[in-house]
């Protein structure tokens, strides 16, 4: 954008949306700013929902991303509990529920993702998903009644819910389609360790199976059947089988919304329209491929770049992806791409001691670095992932 906009609208008022708003102000934008979010709460943080909030260690209010004073200073119109319902890029109008039409000069789309559901059964009492503060509240209230819990899906959310529920002393079954929890994210060897972590704590881990249907009894869930024909009895079921980008409202916009809002390397989807966070699929200039990340740090980093580019910076967005997950007393952190099929080399510590750093490499190039209970030791390897060198060299000299 060459001329400074007079009205910037941000759809989605969570990690990415709020960061975009703050960045615009920090970069000197002092025009009209509107933030639209369909949840009733002030922007809050999601990672604690499956951890401290579900465990009852934090009151939900601790998840607030900013203080009320910070929001006042931001000087934005915060439309909470309001939903963007349609977008007309050619006229630069965003439609909001109750028939309101808002004109914008520039728009940032940060509507995140929504949890995928099983084909049926979500209306039964005792069936949960976990994405929002309200979901967390409902789930925790139910877990306090000490139900037998089944968790469908062993990605980050499912695995964390299983760990937290196990910590609350519940009987937990974790149902995992792959060979081990997080197998698609971490590769088999490491995922196998995650599986062990769960079974060591007494979680019943069912691998290589999916859920076929939920079993009901008098309007409540009573269990579920699995693809191998077995039945898992449960009084509470958490469905954590992934998410889909929240782009329903963009269906008639003309934007490419195949798996998220498609953006170029500058987080731009169309003239005057940018996207950031879980909802954005952008062309990663170094990987030279479109990617979409559902990681907390990506939401902030991408929002910063999108906001700066909206104001004319023209910076390509080429982050080193980063995520962490906390399960039991274990912190797993990863920089870069840690996909299956990579060659995994332990460069620090020892998996048997439950503290190590492992490098992931493809064709001799280091693509990712993972730390298991080793935050400090992992940090220097971030550089290595950002500026890859042949892995032999990395193994020999990369140690801190």
């Amino acid at each position: 954008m060459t001329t400074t906009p007079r009205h910037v609208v941000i759809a989605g008022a969570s990690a990415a949306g709020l960061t975009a708003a703050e960045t615009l102000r920090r970069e000197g934008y002092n025009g009209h700013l509107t933030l639209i979010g369909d949840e009733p709460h002030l922007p809050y943080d999601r990672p604690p929902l499956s951890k401290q909030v579900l465990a009852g260690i934090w009151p939900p209010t601790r998840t607030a991303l900013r203080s009320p004073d910070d929001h006042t200073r931001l000087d934005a119109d915060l439309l909470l509990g309001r939903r963007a319902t349609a977008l007309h890029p050619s006229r630069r109008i965003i439609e909001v529920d109750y028939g309101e039409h808002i004109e914008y000069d520039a728009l940032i789309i940060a509507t995140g993702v929504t949890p995928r559901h099983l084909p049926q059964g979500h209306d039964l009492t005792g069936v949960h998903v976990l994405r929002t503060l309200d979901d967390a509240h409902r789930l925790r209230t139910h877990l306090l009644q000490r139900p037998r819990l089944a968790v469908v899906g062993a990605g980050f959310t499912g695995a964390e819910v299983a760990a937290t529920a196990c910590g609350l002393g519940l009987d937990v079954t974790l149902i995992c389609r792959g060979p081990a929890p997080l197998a698609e994210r971490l590769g088999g060897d490491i995922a196998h360790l995650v599986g062990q972590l769960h079974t060591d704590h007494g979680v019943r881990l069912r691998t290589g199976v999916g859920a076929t249907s939920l079993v009901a009894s008098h309007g409540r869930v009573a269990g579920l059947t699995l693809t191998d024909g077995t039945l898992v009895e449960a009084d509470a079921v958490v469905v954590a089988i992934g998410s889909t980008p929240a782009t329903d409202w963009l269906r008639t916009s003309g934007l490419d919304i195949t798996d998220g809002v498609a953006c170029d390397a500058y987080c731009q989807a169309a003239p005057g329209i940018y996207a950031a966070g879980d909802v954005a699929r952008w062309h990663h200039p170094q990987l030279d491929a479109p990617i979409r990340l559902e990681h907390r740090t990506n939401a902030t980093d991408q929002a910063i770049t999108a906001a700066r580019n909206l104001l004319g910076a023209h910076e390509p967005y080429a982050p080193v992806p980063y995520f962490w997950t906390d399960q039991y007393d274990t912190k797993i952190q990863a920089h870069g791409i840690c996909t299956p099929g990579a060659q995994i080399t332990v460069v620090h510590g020892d998996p048997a001691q439950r503290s190590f750093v492992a490098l992931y490499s493809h064709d001799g190039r280091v693509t990712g670095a993972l730390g298991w209970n080793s935050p400090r030791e992992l940090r220097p390897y971030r550089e290595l992932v950002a500026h890859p060198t042949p892995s032999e060299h990395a193994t020999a000299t990369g140690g801190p």
Partner: protein
Amino acid sequence: MRVTLDQDKCCGAGTCVLSAPDVFDQDDDGIAILLDPTPPAHLAAGVRDAATRCPAAAIRLEAE
């Protein structure tokens, strides 16, 4: 500028150390340590960046 750090919120990402290495460090558990609660003006930009990027909203800034 006055910086406060809520170590209880910190999730050990280390983003703050990358943004402002003179102001933040990490302990062995990865929990951030505030080296200087009143950093000099020339470090302010890095500290603001750290506060914005911190994925746990653990860093708060107050103008003096």
